[in-house]
């Protein structure tokens, strides 16, 4: 077996870097879309909105029971056909791999974030709601200023954990021929035959990013454990 040659990594770095940036951008976009939609979904369920509540519950149950890779396929192949039918001329309207990835990841993560926030909403003490009522705060201000900030604080470690998983899952975009960090490494590895070095380095980058985020989770946990120690 040849000895390891990491000089190849230095040459490959710009390409790997662009892959990493794509992974991070996808993570960030899916996080933002997922959190906004997830919060809405959680509130719809929390308020037991008649029809919407059931639809959201069904959506979450569906999304959570199928693999992400399948959702990506669906989106990539089915949505253009559906759009084609809707537009009337019957021809598929391609939405492109990048858009597919951003939308799919956002919608997929929304289901998971929604569950986290829904549980968080249930964990808020009833007294908090009563205090808001007694102060005549509107429902909007109650949730915007009092309830949701507390939910996000309590749930932030779990939300961050879920986001770390999301970051790792972005590697699945290879099925759409998009080049994320892992995709970049694997293409280069096949070109130059340095599989071991490339995969080792990529693993280290994933490890670095994920453990940095885990450190954040740990310190958040500690902070809120202390803040929650009253009474």
């Amino acid at each position, binding site marked *: 077996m040849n000895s390891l040659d990491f000089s190849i990594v230095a040459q490959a770095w710009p390409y790997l870097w662009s892959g990493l940036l794509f992974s991070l951008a996808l993570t960030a976009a899916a996080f933002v879309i997922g959190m906004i939609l997830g919060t809405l979904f959680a509130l719809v369920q929390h308020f037991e909105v008649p029809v919407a509540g059931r639809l959201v519950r069904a959506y979450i149950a569906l999304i959570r029971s199928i693999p992400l890779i399948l959702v990506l396929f669906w989106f990539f192949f089915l949505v253009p056909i559906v759009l084609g039918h809707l537009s009337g001329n019957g021809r598929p309207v391609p939405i492109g791999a990048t858009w597919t990835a951003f939308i799919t990841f956002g919608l997929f993560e929304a289901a998971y974030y929604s569950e986290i926030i829904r549980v968080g909403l249930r964990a808020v003490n009833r007294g908090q709601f009563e205090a808001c009522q007694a102060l*005549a705060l509107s429902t909007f201000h109650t949730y915007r*200023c009092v309830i949701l900030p507390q939910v996000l604080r309590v749930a932030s470690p779990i939300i961050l954990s879920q986001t770390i998983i999301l970051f790792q899952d972005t590697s699945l975009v290879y099925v759409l021929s998009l080049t994320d960090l892992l995709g970049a490494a694997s293409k280069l590895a096949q070109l130059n035959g340095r599989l071991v070095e490339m995969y080792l380095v990529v693993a280290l980058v994933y490890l670095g990013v994920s453990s940095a985020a885990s450190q954040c989770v740990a310190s958040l946990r500690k902070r809120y454990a202390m803040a929650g120690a009253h009474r």
Partner: protein
Amino acid sequence: MFQETAVNVTSRSSAIVAVENLVKRFGQFTALNDINLTVAAGEKIVLCGPSGSGKSTLIRCINHIEKHDGGRIVVTGVELTDRMTDINSVRREVGMVFQSFNLFPHLSIVENCMLAPMKVRGLSREEAHERAMGVLRQVRIHDQAGKYPGQLSGGQQQRVAIARALCMQPKIMLFDEPTSALDPEMVKEVLDTMIGLARGGMTMICVTHEMGFAREVADRVVFMDRGTIVEEADPETFFRAARTERAKGFLQQIIH
């Protein structure tokens, strides 16, 4: 049952709270049965009675945290119905202090006091801050304004809760067992704050077993048992010569 014909407020004009034939049920259980209570502006009422007698439920009906099932509640001239505008116009004038403080843990002390005046009364941040600091000074806790609820003792937290309610400049204050969750050495600071408030002329309805407080500030003691008002008297008469056996039995128990 609501009486559709009783549109006119029949209570005395000086009454700031008028409760007529109030009924509240929790499923099969009748928590309040035919309660009649009139509170004049500036009056201090102490509600007492054994646990489960309905006294907390009664004051929670007055600001519609519990929805009543029958009878009428008129607060500052507004009858409480299902309409949110009525409910909120009553709640704006009625401050409430809870047994478990219910401060907002993610907001600092001064922010706890600023939130509702800004969002409900429409005060600017500066105005709300100025008002909050004034009231916090009044309850002698302004030096803790930047801290968070979790960093304060129970007694301090309860004084902040009183301040938070006062920042809305309510006409009536409701107290739901404000000292029951406190360590004994912290009860006094909260009671002193409440006594100060009473001396300032605030209309107060207090659910409490602090009989010393009742003697000192109450105009009337209302004794409840099993969802009804059993006896009403001025504190001296009530403590010295309660008329009903139930009240006598209750007094004997809390003295021991």
